[in-house]
């Protein structure tokens, strides 16, 4: 018998339909993947099972957990289930823990509540589960606060809270999306082990087909609130009967066409970084001794040629964003020099930097956060034009904006809209339009596609490739995602603890990594081909 059965579940929020006739089952000890793009209703399905839906939501159909009718259950019954028989892990570990309570309090709280355990007993059990999820007492006593922990460690605490009472079902909603690939692999391993130890059912929600394929026995694909396909992972993905499944799989492995590959050594370098370092003041341990500085970037040298596309890959916190900020002259190196088009940009005044800034633009990760919501697109995209020597007149400016929008696949009518009127992918197109409007020679892109759905992400990667071919823009892609590097980069630089540890042709580095950090990254990166092949063997 199934542990969780969802039959013909429909959900509306106000007048908006969110889910339409969703069917899903999870058996004890089984891992079921729920895949879909943003807005497909994955999270709402999870919140329906937990009965933590927003106020105006109305659910119809049947949701049965362990014989209990969830949709008909009272709030008291649900409180008894939540955290005891059903645990849940969320996407964003940085904000999922209460900042003013210790991790011990937060893990023990549920145990005290459900098991009616004494404080000492609950803390004892909290200690055990924290040990189990890989947070040993020596380094992570119960008295630690969330802000003293990294993202991966915080996600372990959230998993400890969810699994403290050995739930029958664990719902994990994008549990690794905010983490780098190495941490992702560790957290997925932990979840897999917990499933095995406790014969727990796991509903794994993800937009990442490769992750789900590695983990799930069966998968359900959601689109616009409807199940498009469901079945054994291996069969579903190898046969790809439904066109949407095929679309998702293709988009996940998409490689943009770049007919004119870059020829290394063909020109003198556009960007030269020589022995650059950046120290941050460390935390003072004693009033009388000076603080030990933290070296975020350590003696880094690299060159980028015109029209060359380079990916800088590394785990979170390795210093790649700090390096990018120095290249963009947004931060000053404590050592070394950076030359752009042969001229040093280190130690220059803002006025002297203006010509360099014109030829060097940036695209950020979050298309939601990088625009002022109260300004129109025309003004937002035209922003870098103040760097031009001769300021264009109003009509000319509109024309330039229209041209830039056209180049990224948007229309001139979009000029008079506000950012909130665009989808995530369109907003990322806007930020690319803003970056290319001054005809730069170099665009630095910091995780430009990691917030996007796979199909949108394939389109944006295509756009990057096209602009590289058409306008000869060189790229520095900063990413922890090796598929992005594989899709778009001529060369890959691997950064680890502030140093560049490996550099080479993309295929060489990704297929035959030589350094230890590069090998760790490649091994941890989810790969759809590999995952399907393994599933095929297991499931026959």
């Amino acid at each position, binding site marked *: 018998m199934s542990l969780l059965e969802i039959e013909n579940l429909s959900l509306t929020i106000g007048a908006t339909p969110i889910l339409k006739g969703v069917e899903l089952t999870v058996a004890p000890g089984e891992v079921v993947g729920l895949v879909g793009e943003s807005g497909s209703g994955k999270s709402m399905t999870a919140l329906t099972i937990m009965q933590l839906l927003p106020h105006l939501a109305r659910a119809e159909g049947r949701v049965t957990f362990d014989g209990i009718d969830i949709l008909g259950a009272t709030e008291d019954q649900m*409180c008894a289930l939540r*955290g005891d028989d059903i645990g849940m892990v969320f996407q964003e570990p940085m904000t*999922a823990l209460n900042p003013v309570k210790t991790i011990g309090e937060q893990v023990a709280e549920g145990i005290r509540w459900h098991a009616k355990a004494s404080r000492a007993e609950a803390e004892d059990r909290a200690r055990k589960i924290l040990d189990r999820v890989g947070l040993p007492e020596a380094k992570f006593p119960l008295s630690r606060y969330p802000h003293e922990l990294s993202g991966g460690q915080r996600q372990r605490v959230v998993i400890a809270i969810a699994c403290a009472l050995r739930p029958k079902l664990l719902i994990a909603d994008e549990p690794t999306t905010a983490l780098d690939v190495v941490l992702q692999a560790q957290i997925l391993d932990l979840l897999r082990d917990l499933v095995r130890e406790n014969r727990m059912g796991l509903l794994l929600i993800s937009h990442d087909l490769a992750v789900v394929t590695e983990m799930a026995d069966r998968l359900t694909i959601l689109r616009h609130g409807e199940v498009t396909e469901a079945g054994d992972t291996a069969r579903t993905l190898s046969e790809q009967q439904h066109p949407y499944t095929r679309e998702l799989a293709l988009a996940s492995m998409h490689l943009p066409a770049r007919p004119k590959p870059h020829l290394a050594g063909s020109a003198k370098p556009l960007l030269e970084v020589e022995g650059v370092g950046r120290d941050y003041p460390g935390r003072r341990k004693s009033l009388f001794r000076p603080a030990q500085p933290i070296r975020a970037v350590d003696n880094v040298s690299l060159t980028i040629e015109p029209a060359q596309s380079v990916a800088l890959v590394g785990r979170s916190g390795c210093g790649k964003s700090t390096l990018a900020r120095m290249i963009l002259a947004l931060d000053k190196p404590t050592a070394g020099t950076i030359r752009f088009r042969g001229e040093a940009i280190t130690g220059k005044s803002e006025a002297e930097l203006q010509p360099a800034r014109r030829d060097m633009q940036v695209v950020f990760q979050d298309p939601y956060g990088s625009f002022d919501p109260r300004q129109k697109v025309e003004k937002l995209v035209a922003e870098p034009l103040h760097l031009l020597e001769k300021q264009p007149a109003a009509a000319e400016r509109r024309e330039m904006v229209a041209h830039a929008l056209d180049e990224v696949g948007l229309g001139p009518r979009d000029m008079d809209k506000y950012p909130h009127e665009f989808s995530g992918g369109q907003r990322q197109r806007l930020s690319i339009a803003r970056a290319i409007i001054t005809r730069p020679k170099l665009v630095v892109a910091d995780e430009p596609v990691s917030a996007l759905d796979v199909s949108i992400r394939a389109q944006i990667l295509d756009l990057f490739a096209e602009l590289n071919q058409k306008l000869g823009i060189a790229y520095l892609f900063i990413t922890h995602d090796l598929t992005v590097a594989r899709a778009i980069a001529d060369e890959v630089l691997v950064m680890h603890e502030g140093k560049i540890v490996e550099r080479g042709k993309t295929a060489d580095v990704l297929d035959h990594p030589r350094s230890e950090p590069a090998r760790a990254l490649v091994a941890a990166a989810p790969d759809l081909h590999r995952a399907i092949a393994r599933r095929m063997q297991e499931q026959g």
Partner: protein
Amino acid sequence: MTAYLAKRLIIAALTLVLASMVVFAVMEVLPGDPARLMLGLNASADQVELLRNQMGLNAPLVLRYLHWAGGLLSLDFGRSYTYSVPVIDLVRERIAVSVPLALIALALSTIIAIPVGVFSASRQGRAGDTLAMGAAQIGVAVPNFWFALMLIYLFAVWLRLVPAGGFPGWGAGVWTALKSLILPAVALALPQAAILGRVARSALIEVLNEDYIRTARAKGLPYRAVLWRHALRNAMIPVLTILGLQFAFLLAGTIIIENVFYLPGLGRLIFQAITQRDLIVVESIVMLLVAAVILINLLVDFSYAIVDPRLRGRQ
């Protein structure tokens, strides 16, 4: 933690020094010669000059400031021009009225505001919330002396539960003395409570949308437990900030309220001193009020560190 507290303490001390300079400077540029005022209009220029020398008013500005500030540190505030008694004696008995009054009002406003904020936030948009916030709106808009008059009418004139004004002194018994402070404290507290309640509500609503509230709910805690155990403490920071900032207004309110209730407090003393141009008394009381505001804000800074562990590691 110690570094954070030490830094706050130093900042508070520096603020106090700076404030004393400003108070001294303002009093310097105000028109009116204290010596002339004390001797009356008929005094000759020589007599005035003699008294000025005696009072040290002809000494250089810096020396006079240092003398005055040094006196403050040893609680020697100088002598009142009009009463010819040490200012500290005047102030001492008044403080016994004003400090309890301010503290009771502060406590009352918090005790009223937080439950109202919690009540409203947990019923956001529903009738109870609308009603509570409508009442708060009135509380913010209506001046405290009007409240005071209404309270006097209701509780003193009509119900005859408490005296309508005056203060029997602490010698008449704690309860009797407290009874005459209740109405003024309520009148002072209501507008403060209205502002604090609104801040508490909006802070809570923001916190209730945080991810960690969802995590707490997913643990199986009922909504009320989540509200009190997880949300409230996180919402306290803005509430404490406003509490500290509003304290200055609360003190300003005591000047009016003490006059309405005929209480022999600092507020009435400063009011009289201003009309009598007893500048040294004004100066001293203003410094006391400034010190009180700085002290309360220092306590607010300290309580931040208790509420939020993230501040403890910082400097």
